[in-house]
């Protein structure tokens, strides 16, 4: 094939120049307008009164407490949902049982329900007027407007991330390698650690990363169950809202910049993981 025919084929497969450029311009414009501009505003507002004010805002006891609670929540929910997600993916891809398709659909439920509704469900179940409310107050256990409620709501919201990454991969891999390991005398744990885990590790890490990003950033469900008690039940996203409503713009945007930074780190790690996955 000579160069002329190659160009001809290339041209015949491509849209006219003006269409190409306007599509690229629309896409770029959208990203600048709705992603880059807000990020820029967050950073400029956070530093509007200089470095010193930024550091002071982050050093406030309320902000520190919010950051600590956010980290605690992520530290509890992410490992739990990693284990639960692997179990769910394992059950769905390796066993045949009645209600399997129902379970597969239910895994996505937290994605399809509005986070506010999810929070409300927990209030209705564990709240003072809820099903278990009476029993809980008798035993002096606080779930709603306390840390356990925040953890529960986050657990619910972030449950699908790990399972959804693993299910398609494990379905595609099949169970022959695992059966081979068993036939060679491996026990269940050896099979999982030495055969299954190495095969799913990149997808698992990817799921954990997304799960973590959401656990730290969740607003709606946590907002309903937390009660916004300063230094007690405010997570970082809630702290941003409270500060902003009190016209503490530097405080609000300084906290927001932490969350934005977290999002950028997540994106970079995600790209690295996707690149690794593509290689395997």
């Amino acid at each position, binding site marked *: 094939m000579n160069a002329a025919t190659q160009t001809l084929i290339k041209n015949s497969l491509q849209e006219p120049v003006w269409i190409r450029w306007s599509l690229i311009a629309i896409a770029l414009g959208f990203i600048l307008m709705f992603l880059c501009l807000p990020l820029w505003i967050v950073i400029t507002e956070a530093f509007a009164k200089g470095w010193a004010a930024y550091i002071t805002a982050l050093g406030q006891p309320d902000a520190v407490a919010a950051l600590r609670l956010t980290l605690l929540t992520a530290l509890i929910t992410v490992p739990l949902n990693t284990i639960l997600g692997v179990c769910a993916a394992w059950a769905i891809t390796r066993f045949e049982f009645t209600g399997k398709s129902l379970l597969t659909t239910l895994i996505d439920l937290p994605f399809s329900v509005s986070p506010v509704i999810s929070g409300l469900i927990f209030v209705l179940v564990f709240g003072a007027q809820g099903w278990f409310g009476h029993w809980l107050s008798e035993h002096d256990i606080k779930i709603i407007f306390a840390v356990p409620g925040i953890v529960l709501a986050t657990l619910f919201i972030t449950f699908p991330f790990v399972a959804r990454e693993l299910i398609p991969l494990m379905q595609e891999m099949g169970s*022959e*390698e695992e*059966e*081979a*390991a*068993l*036939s*060679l*005398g*491996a*026990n269940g744990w*050896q099979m999982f650690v*030495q*055969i299954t885990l*190495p*095969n799913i590790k990149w997808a698992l890490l990817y799921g954990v990363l997304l799960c973590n990003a959401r656990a730290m950033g969740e607003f709606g469900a946590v907002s309903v169950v937390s009660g916004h008690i300063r230094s007690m039940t405010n997570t970082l996203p809630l702290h941003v809202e409270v500060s902003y409503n009190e016209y503490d713009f530097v405080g609000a945007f300084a906290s927001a910049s932490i969350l934005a930074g977290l999002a950028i780190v997540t994106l970079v790690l995600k790209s690295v993981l996707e690149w690794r996955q593509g290689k395997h």
Partner: protein
Amino acid sequence: MSIILTNISKNFGKFAALNHINLEIPEGELVALLGPSGCGKTTLLRIIAGLEQADSGRVVLNGEDKTEQHVSHRGIGFVFQHYALFRHMTVFDNIAFGLRVKPKKHRPGEADITQKVHALLELVQLDWLHDRFPDQLSGGQRQRIALARALAVEPDVLLLDEPFGALDASVRKDLRQWLRNLHHELNVTSIFVTHDQEEAMEVASQVVVLNHGRIEQQGAPSDIYDHPANAFVSRFIGQTNVFSGDDQDTIWLQSSGLPINDKPGKTAHVRPHDIDVEKASDEASAHAVLKDWQHLGALIRIELVKNAADADNATVYAEMPNEQFKRLQLNRGDKVSLRIRNAHWFH
């Protein structure tokens, strides 16, 4: 180690995959489970391995009832159809896996493992590949590595699921011979599943023919070929001409030299090489017209049409050596006389 299966049944929903299977395999045999796809042969193999549980029946290996035992404790080696090599491990680590997962008190030292893996790699003639990963190997190489991995744990029984199914025709031929020789060397009781009758006849010392979850016949390859137990086996193993056994066909068969006293069945199966073909000397001795022929290497397959006024025009196949066919100097449309030497009758 001998294998005894008693009364094995397995259903998948309403589909009966296996129906009261009774099978006895003496020690040291190389057995082919042969049947069309969906006949239950792979399910039976997986039940022997313990990868599948039978709904009823017992699996006895070497006199020990292993029905309830987990696959990891059955002392079997299983070679999967698509090899199932561990993709994240080198060839060496794949073969060493079975030795490294042994409980501490039975686990050999790392030096012994290295020695054993290299011995196995030499057995399958692939020692030079020890540091490669599975996706860097050809299909035939993967197959041999999978076999070496299964042999590493010194299984009492070797089970192979369609061992040549995913290979090129030329590689398949070599591997068949190689597997046969390997079995001679190791003498471990082995069962392989195949849908290819030629493969079963060539490799196995015993053939078990399965159909619709039942055993149709078990025996040495020559037994099964020469004395098929029923119409299914006769049709499935080798080529055969099927005659309906009605009056027309019976008269035609008789006139073509097949002795029939007191018709022994409803259909007659005639192997192509049991039909002798010659040029007809006159109209009266012409039993068929030569329609066409094909070269099968050393043999010629001849297509014949029955030469009778009211006969159906089904093709009858005959086979003869190349040399003999040349000597007869036959052409398309020639009238030929036949001598049918043998037939199997089935109800």
